[in-house]
């Protein structure tokens, strides 16, 4: 496998200074020194709760937001150094599937126009070819061909998301960023869309960055998973490692907080994470997680842990990484 994307020391701060008189500059470090890489054909899941910066990260990679610092090396070139017109052309290689299928489709455009737009922007097709392409894309994502001339409001959320996916894969991009693609959908539809995304990834050899607020959605599609907390990646490893041997206490907390659809396994005894997610404008000193961490020591309050490889291919930023076997799936279970 070769490397498709490398993110190095990426930072994004928003100026959140308020008020006219007390002008003390305040910054929200939404993404704070994040580095990782994505291989061709891989699915990297990014998980975290609100305010962790996962969506900002996605928007930075796809260049909807301008990073404050850092490099985004995609396919060998630093996207930040590309002149605007070249960047515009490069965009056909990175596409996005959005969270809210009601806002991501222009209500005044027909399905045909929506799916055809990327093709028209980057290719030259005549009318017949264009229609042929669009119909094929509709087949691929499981949309009935007769919907070609309908408007988005005539569709349910799941079908709209299929339209959005067809638009995203139209240009056969090298990388697709899925920004919480199922969190706005009904349960029975979520699995349809997850299966579709997974099928497309296999068949078209796509690379995904799959952003979600919970582990259940990413578990199904990801190869590796990065866990974010307050603008930083706190743990990054393979899916199997994360679920069987998490190293960061926050990952452990995330795992144990997921309600299990089995009433015989009610977790009255389970340890839950205490407290709230701190305000990202004033993150805690030292390790940002120490305010909620059950294992914190005096060191954690003072010194920020470094994000390093603790075991083979298993990165974490923690002074006291957990022992093996703290996950919710036992090591002996087959996967």
């Amino acid at each position, binding site marked *: 496998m070769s490397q498709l994307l490398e993110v190095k020391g990426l930072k994004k701060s928003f100026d959140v200074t308020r008020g006219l008189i007390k002008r003390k500059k305040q910054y929200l470090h939404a993404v704070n020194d994040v580095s990782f890489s994505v291989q061709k054909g891989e699915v990297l899941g990014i998980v975290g709760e609100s305010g962790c910066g996962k969506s900002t990260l996605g928007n930075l990679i796809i260049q909807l937001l301008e990073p404050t610092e850092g490099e985004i090396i995609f396919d060998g070139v630093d996207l930040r150094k590309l002149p605007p017109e070249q960047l515009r052309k490069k965009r056909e290689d990175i596409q996005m599937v959005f969270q809210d299928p009601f806002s991501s489709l222009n209500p005044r455009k027909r399905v045909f126009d929506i799916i055809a737009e990327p093709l028209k922007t980057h290719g030259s097709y005549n009318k017949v070819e264009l229609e042929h392409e669009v119909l094929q894309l509709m087949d691929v994502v499981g949309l009935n061909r007769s919907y070609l001339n309908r408007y988005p409001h005539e569709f349910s959320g799941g079908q709209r998301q299929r339209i959005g996916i067809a638009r995203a894969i139209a240009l056969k991009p090298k990388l697709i960023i899925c920004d919480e693609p199922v969190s706005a959908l009904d*349960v029975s*539809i979520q699995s349809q869309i997850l299966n579709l995304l997974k099928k497309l990834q296999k068949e078209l050899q796509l690379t995904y960055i799959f952003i979600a607020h919970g582990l259940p959605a990413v578990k199904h599609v990801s190869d590796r998973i990065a866990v974010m907390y307050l603008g930083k990646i706190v743990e990054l490893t393979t899916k199997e490692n994360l679920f069987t041997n998490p190293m960061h206490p926050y990952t452990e907390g995330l795992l144990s907080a*997921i309600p*299990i*659809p*089995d009433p*015989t396994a009610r977790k009255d005894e389970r340890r839950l994470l205490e407290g*709230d997610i701190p305000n990202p404008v004033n993150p805690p000193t030292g390790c940002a997680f120490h305010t909620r961490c059950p294992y914190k020591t005096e060191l954690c309050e003072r010194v920020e842990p470094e994000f390093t490889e603790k075991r083979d291919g298993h990165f974490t930023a923690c002074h006291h990484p957990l022992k093996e076997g703290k996950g919710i799936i036992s090591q002996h279970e087959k996967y």
Partner: protein
Amino acid sequence: MNDILLEVKQLKTYFFTEDGIVPAVDDVSFNIHKGETVAIVGESGSGKSVTSLSIMRLIEEPGKIVGGEINFEGINLNKVPRMKMREIRGNRIAMVFQEPLTSLNPVFTVGNQLAESIKLHQKKSKKEAREIGIEMLRKVGIARPDKVYDQYPHALSGGMRQRVMIAMALSCSPKLLIADEPTTALDVTIQAQILRLMRDLIKELDTSILLITHDLGVVAEMADTVVVMYGGQVVEKADVFTLFKEPKHPYTKGLMDSSPKIHEWNEELVSIPGTVPSPFEFPIGCKFADRCPHVMNKCKEEIPSLIEIRKGQEVRCWLHSEKVVDLE
């Protein structure tokens, strides 16, 4: 059992829209016993929220309760005069909504809003209301409640706001708490805290809960009895252990199979084909017919009735119309 707190009998709530009549809730019946937690599970369009709003008599035009009874502590809420209903609402029955930010008024402090309901329903003075309010905030696990009492909602996090909402709802020790997707807008770690809080509080206050949710995980954590709704109808009803062990309705099974299993490895998620039809496009027979893997001719023609297939488990499905038939 005689300790029935709420009895919903053949409830029908229809919406009379320009394009036709939508039977949002069509012949729904269930009971809630004292201290029991009943969960209504369903997806959008299943009628679960309309059911809860009907109980609260909060259905607005063009919706109307067209039939059935809602008996709460022996009174038919459907026949209660408006003034009396207002007294019951908030006092005997309280509600917690999905989005805590929109259900709190941004221009009043937390304390203001908390005290308002206490003063209104318990006839307390301002000072007493403050004390009770702060005590409630402490009960729902808010650190420094006296400080939060004087803060405005926007200064609080989502989880804190939902705690405040729960404090408000429980401040008058209602007999029934209707929680409509109370944790859907919250982060997982906060959701777990809130669910545990609700469970502890109802034990302490002896309150019954009607929990509206789409999340089977939440159901498994919280409920004693589960009502599964689809297309405005109850398709299955059982105690939580039976339901998760032996779901009988194909829709219930589909829901269970399609929710990601976080505690085991599985490659392909099973999903229910198709989408929930628009209100005007439901099949004539069983509402689930065109998405059902076991569909038979009969299903397309006639709506099955809800039948008790064993003690405590009722199913609305032709596969189970004769008690002896087993699905497998």
